[in-house]
């Protein structure tokens, strides 16, 4: 059983780029399967978050181009279109409870590559 799980897992983690390809506090968009995923490297550079790139309010694929920061201690990105904030950990929109964007797990491999889990 374990071996099977292991196998599925390793297929689901998709390598995106080197950590060093990302500028701290600046987002990029990656293609993960068919999904557009916004990836942010924040803080001192050791935290990597991934959420859907699609802004459900502005209805455009732009979230990777928003400004990241924190509000009341929560890491957020502000949509570049209408400035709503999305929690990078939960995907929740701070201004509109009914809107949430999908979040993706991320990890950094020993060789310094960023991987996103295709879920």
């Amino acid at each position, binding site marked *: 059983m374990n071996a099977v799980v292991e196998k599925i897992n390793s297929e689901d983690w998709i390598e*995106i*780029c080197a950590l060093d*390809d990302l*500028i*701290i*506090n*600046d987002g*990029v*968009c*990656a*293609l993960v399967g068919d999904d*557009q995923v916004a*990836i942010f490297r*924040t*803080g001192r550079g050791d935290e990597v978050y991934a959420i859907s790139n*699609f802004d459900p309010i*502005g*209805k*455009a*694929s*732009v979230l990777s*181009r*928003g*400004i*990241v*920061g*924190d*509000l*009341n*201690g929560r*890491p*957020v990105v*502000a949509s*570049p*279109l209408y*400035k709503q*904030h999305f929690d990078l950990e939960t995907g929740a929109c701070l201004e509109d409870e009914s809107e949430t964007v999908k979040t993706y797990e991320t990890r950094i491999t020993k060789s310094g590559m960023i991987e996103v889990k295709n879920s």
Partner: protein
Amino acid sequence: MSKQRIVIIGNGMVGHRFIEFLVGSEKSDDFEVITFCEEPRYAYDRVHLSAFFSGSTAEDLSLVEDGFYEQHGVTVHLNDKAISIDRDNNTVKSAQGLEVSYDKLILATGSYPFVPPVPGKDRKGCFVYRTIEDLEGMTAAGAKGKVGAVVGGGLLGLEAAKALKDMGLETHVIEFAPRLMAVQVDEGGGAILRNKIEEIGVRVHTSKNTVNITDGNSTINRMEFEDGESLETDLIVFSAGIRPRDELARDCGLDVGSRGGIEINNQCQTSDPDIYAIGECALWNNQIFGLVAPGYSMAQVAVDHLQGKQESFTGADMSTKLKLMGVDVASFGDALGITTGCRNYTYIDEPTGIYKKLVVSHDGEHLLGGILIGEADAYGNLLQMMLNDMELPEHPDVLILPDRDGSAVGLGVDALPDSAVICSCNNVTKGDLNAAVQAGCTTVGALKSETNAGTGCGGCVALMTQVMNAEMENMGMEVNTDLCEHFPYTRQDLYNLIRVEEIKSFEELIEKHGTGRGCDICKPTVGSILASCWNDYVLEKPHAGLQDTNDRYLGNMQKDGTYSVIPRIAGGEITPEKLTILGNIGSKYGLYTKITGGQRIDFFGARLDQLPDIWEELIDAGFESGHAYAKSLRTVKSCVGSTWCRYGVDDSVGLAIELENRYKGLRAPHKIKFAVSGCTRECAEAQSKDIGVIATENGWNLYVCGNGGMKPRHADLFASDLDKETLIKYIDRVLMFYVRTGDRLQRTSTWMENMEGGLEYLQQVVIDDKLGLCDQLEEEMSHIVDTYQCEWKTTIEDPEKVKRFRHFINSDKEDNNVVFVQERDQIRPATEEEKIEFRKVG
């Protein structure tokens, strides 16, 4: 019940205010309102008549909002003068032959300028200073003449002199009394005022009695004086006081005063209870009130009385503060010290030209009046002290002595009672202001529009601000001006910190002065300040993440996530060859194309990944970034100017290009728009811009802080007839001062609206160097100008930067969510429905 018919004779400031009060009152439906106006236009702001010379139009001065009379069913007979009143039949006859009956009649006929009975007073070139038509006549005559003289050295006379001076005439003031402003100012004050005014280049002649006006040798007229001297002059403007227009009242037998004026009681009724008189034509308690505020009070009392309320007019405070030819002059209460037993304190600073006097009661406990010349900042507080009969400090002289060690003994606004009138033009009390603050007006701008305070002469704005701040403090409302949760500072504070400590990055700033990681408020703000100060390339690694998406990708993001592309077309001048290149690039990339309001070409629908290619082609063809994406200089719009235009006075296109190239790339609290017009026809609409320049016969007029857009604001005339060097110097200083003190996302128009001291203050800072900043401001600007770079050129030359414009970091695919459809032969973003349709087909 049928309506009561109210007829008002005179549609001046007071007549109009009466109608406003009446139609806005509880029982407004009970009245039918008819008014006669002998002038060709509705009521206008006579107090600010001289603004006409600095570019305000008759429309700007109008007090009547479009459609106001129609909306309230008020009948106005324009251009028709009431010529007689029949009190037996309650009717009024007009010059055009109308006969209108009335239930109640309101005389708001105002006053006329007194012209001394000098032989020759009706000669060519002789004017009075009262109506817009008078001013139009003066302007026409001033354009031909060289010399102008004003008869009368009172308030209005000095205003008229300023107008003549501004027209470029050699200007003289002729005063019968031994000093200027004899009614308001004593001898000592008159002398200082005279020095100040002569410094500006106006010649003052006192104790001069004009006895004859005749042909001049080199000018149209010659004025001959009683002492045998004479003066050659083209224009003569009579401003020797006003006389009430009481002829209608006299003719129908109403009581008038021995020296004129229609007698009224405390309810503003004349000797006929059906007839009221208000404003400058009315005589109350043997006094005529030649100011607008008492006229407004009378209008209110009369309206109240018509509705059965017993309010009374009880006289008025005739205190004034104004700026005459750049000199502050204030006079209040018993300025000349005629109260029995009163005592004076006087402070004179001859070198600077300051004169201050306090008149206090015999026991030294109360303030009776005073005069301030050359510096009148204390006026608001002193006036309140007097009006509210507040106790003076032990040594009242501290109130007028210079505050050299910063320990000014002021009067806390908290000490004022709620009933204290802060704005006397619009009768707004401290209580009214506090109520508005409590209702949420926490900026001067909001308070102005809510209460009207500070919108008349503007003399109370400083005091009004103190009241606002004090009330906010009393409410326990921390006046929270923090930029955001990460910085307990205003934008201006952050600017100063960055400058003084030479901070070069956001990380350094937040480490030293902030908390957390920042947000979409503070990051772009700091990014902009860093750019304003050090002018680094905005996409340098530490700065890239601070930029709003527009700055980050050097284009304006549109609703579908694509960007617009706008190359700079300085001054709107472009060769056909370059225009063709733009056309080719637009069609190669299939971009939607439109002409902008700022005279350039805007391409839409460029995907992120296309931007570097498009810009590479543009730059190869000699274009550069238009900074349309940045909070910075956008465009300098121009008319075609003297090169081609039959009416052009100067080369507006040439100047526009020079200005645009000088200030391009300057990052500021918000975007900045310029325009340059080649003559006063103003085809470039410079007076709706942050910086507007208009060519005159003698140089350039500079206008500042105008705005079109959401809240239009007419720009203020900042300085006239400048040579190009001075013009650029002033613009450098104004812009850098804005960059230094503006709030985040505050356009220059709101910056000006909220500036304590307003236009005058900005002029003092920029022209008189009041803060000693000018050299520094110029230096800072010169750094920006010297370090300009085209951000797109820098970007396309760096492959690492170009990589950041790919849509996917791990794929060369395009964003499949960007879908266009055709409309009017061009692309537009597909709607959500169209996208669904498209996917089905696709």
